[in-house]
């Protein structure tokens, strides 16, 4: 029987990525977990801020984390442009982990570099630090690995790959660290993590583990499974596919006793949708769940999955073709004609339902508010903030949501690249958070400036000037003396 596992992200620290030189976010349960080793509050985290202030960067960092911890490669095409030249991008994430009765805290630090020649994003080094909970957090254990085999020369020269630890005594007991040579070569070729990949994961199943090995494998297994099965990151470009009207990316988490279905299934809207019979049956269940929730949100709307064709493919597996219809008060039409907001709802609802019910789920969404009616969004987030069991990290521009959240749920991005994220200080219980935020945008008074409009002030003039490059045929009659000053000023 498998132990019940739970992973929660407590903190994200980001360096040298896009417009973030440094930024640190502590999520809602950081202190609860740090000081009492428990998760107490609905873990809803909204990141707010001016355009270009680093909100999306955080979601993208989480996306990379999800892939790396899930044993996957970071796509060069997608991410290279966001990396600094000749420097490492750093991402450090703190987790709270429950494995049955055992509790851990772990920090996974990544140093990533882009290799322009080979067009790869490389995991330059990675470090896993973890603490087991006794009466308090026990002495830290750590494992650091820097892959020497990115340089192919080092494979020839038989360089040895080693997991390094400050606590040699404890690390010496962990047999998993002893023979990573071949694995390291594999990881360097695939650009994947040494600690998080299928081969290493399988080796952690070994029988007869000592306490040190147990703790290490608890942490690694929990994080790997979390990344693969319970942590979903929805970036804006996922919706891009949605906008092109080809399909709705349905973010799914469905858990039964024996299996977990996790990921994003493209629900094609033009009849090309092909699924194995097994997936189709699950999809039908997912659509059913979506409809239950959708009814509460948009009363007369439901989604229908209609089987148009069923056949056996070359491998002899039954494949189903299906179309997605919207049903509004009995009128059926292809869902592709629905508005973007509704497609977005359909896309996210299943995952939001899982998040609401399951404490081990984490969903990170960029622009949660895109295309969604603000009142509705406010209500939805309000419900989640009261009762959601899982974790939601989202960015938004919509200030209505802010009114529905407590100040601890709000993270503000700032105009300072060296300190990108802060929480609002000085809000009193009776303050309307939205009003408080607008006032802080106008007058400042927070640790960092939230908004900079000194350049924006010129926008009206810039528009006029752009439309009248020759000037506007009047001239101010300055004295020669002052004109001279203006020229030299």
């Amino acid at each position, binding site marked *: 029987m498998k132990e019940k596992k739970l992973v929660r992200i407590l903190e994200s620290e980001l360096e040298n990525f896009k417009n973030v030189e440094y930024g640190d976010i502590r999520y809602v349960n950081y202190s609860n977990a740090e000081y009492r080793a428990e998760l107490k509050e609905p873990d809803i985290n909204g990141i707010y801020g001016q355009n270009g202030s680093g909100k999306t960067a955080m979601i993208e960092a989480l996306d990379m984390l999800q892939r790396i911890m899930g044993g996957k490669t970071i796509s060069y095409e997608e991410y290279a442009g966001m990396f600094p030249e000749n420097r490492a991008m750093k991402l450090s994430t703190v987790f709270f982990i429950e494995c049955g009765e055992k509790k851990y805290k772990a920090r996974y630090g990544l140093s990533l570099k882009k290799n322009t020649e080979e067009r790869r994003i490389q995991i330059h080094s990675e470090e896993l630090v973890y603490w087991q909970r006794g009466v308090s957090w026990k002495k830290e254990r750590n494992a650091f690995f820097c892959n020497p085999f990115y340089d192919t020369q080092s494979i020839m020269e038989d360089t040895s790959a080693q997991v390094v630890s400050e606590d040699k005594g404890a690390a010496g007991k962990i047999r998993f660290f002893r023979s990573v040579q071949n694995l390291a070569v594999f990881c360097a070729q695939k650009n994947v993590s040494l600690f998080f990949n299928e081969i290493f994961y399988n080796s952690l199943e070994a029988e007869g583990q000592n306490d040190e090995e147990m703790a290490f494998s608890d942490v690694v297994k929990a994080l790997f499974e979390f990344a693969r099965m319970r942590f979903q990151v929805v970036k804006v470009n996922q919706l891009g596919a949605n906008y092109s009207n080809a399909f709705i990316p349905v973010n799914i988490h469905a858990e039964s006793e024996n299996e977990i279905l996790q990921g994003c299934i493209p629900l094609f809207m033009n009849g090309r949708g092909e699924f194995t019979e097994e997936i189709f049956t699950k999809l039908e269940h997912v659509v059913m769940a979506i409809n239950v929730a959708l009814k509460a949100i948009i009363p007369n709307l439901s989604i229908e999955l209609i089987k148009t064709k069923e056949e056996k493919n070359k491998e002899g597996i039954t494949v189903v073709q299906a179309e997605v219809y919207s049903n509004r008060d009995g009128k059926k039409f292809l869902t592709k004609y629905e508005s973007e907001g509704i497609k977005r709802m359909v896309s996210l609802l299943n995952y939001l339902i899982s998040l609401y019910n399951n404490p081990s789920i984490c969903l990170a969404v960029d622009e949660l508010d895109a295309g969604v009616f603000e009142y509705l969004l406010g209500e939805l987030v309000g419900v989640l903030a009261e009762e959601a069991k899982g974790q939601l990290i989202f960015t938004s521009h919509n200030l209505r949501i802010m009114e529905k959240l407590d100040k601890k749920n709000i993270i503000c991005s700032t105009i300072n690249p060296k300190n990108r994220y802060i929480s609002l200080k000085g809000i009193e219980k009776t303050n*309307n958070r*939205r*009003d*408080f935020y*607008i*006032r802080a945008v*106008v*007058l*400042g*008074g927070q640790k960092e400036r939230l908004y900079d409009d*000194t350049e924006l*002030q*010129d926008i*009206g*003039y810039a528009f*006029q*000037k752009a439309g009248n490059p020759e*000037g*506007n*045929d*009047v*001239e*101010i*009659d*300055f*004295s020669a*003396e*002052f004109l001279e*000053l*203006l020229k030299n*000023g």
Partner: protein
Amino acid sequence: MDKAVIFIVEGATDKKALENIFKKIYRHKEIHFEFTHGDITSDEKINKSNVEAEIYKFVDNYRKDKKLRVSDIWQIVQIFDTDGAYIDDSCIVQGESAEFVYSEEHISCKNIQKVKKRNKHKKELMDYLLTCSGIKGIPYRCYYLSSNLDHALYNKQNLSDGLKRKYAEAFYWQFMGKEHLFIKYLDMEVVNGVPDGFLASWRYIKEDLHSLQRHTNLNIYFKENPIL
């Protein structure tokens, strides 16, 4: 936390000409311009007993929009066009237009009485507001551009609305990136002999034809509110 300063000017184009200059000069204050369409001093329903409340309406609109507290507002600064309000009635002359036409010596209009009435009303309100040091607890101070903003800043009188706009744009373009020179400009070309003291500057504008001539005491604002 910054404090907000609200400037009240008469027209939309006045805001266009001045707002960004002030914003750039006072980077560490939240500078905001409201314009009154001139109706504070030309609306007959507004008098000494309700003018403060009328001004406060502008302040409060802004305050509510930006979710500020009354205590967030540092000061209210009103910039008047003098419009020749202080000239002797004998300098109001018969003209052909129903509109008021200004020169440095006269105001002419078809209906002389209308000008006289306007001047009396405007004078009364400006005189009253000059003695006013606060509105609803917020410090208040008023300055002038003579005979109006166009005259003071561009040396043009009787501009049409279309031209007012063009001049306001051209004016700001000239100062874009060199906003600090605006203060120098006032001193060099616009003050034209107005004394340095605040009260003395007002006494001056009330004399003779000064309120029809090119003057300002706005330079005093910059002296009293040093740039941080």
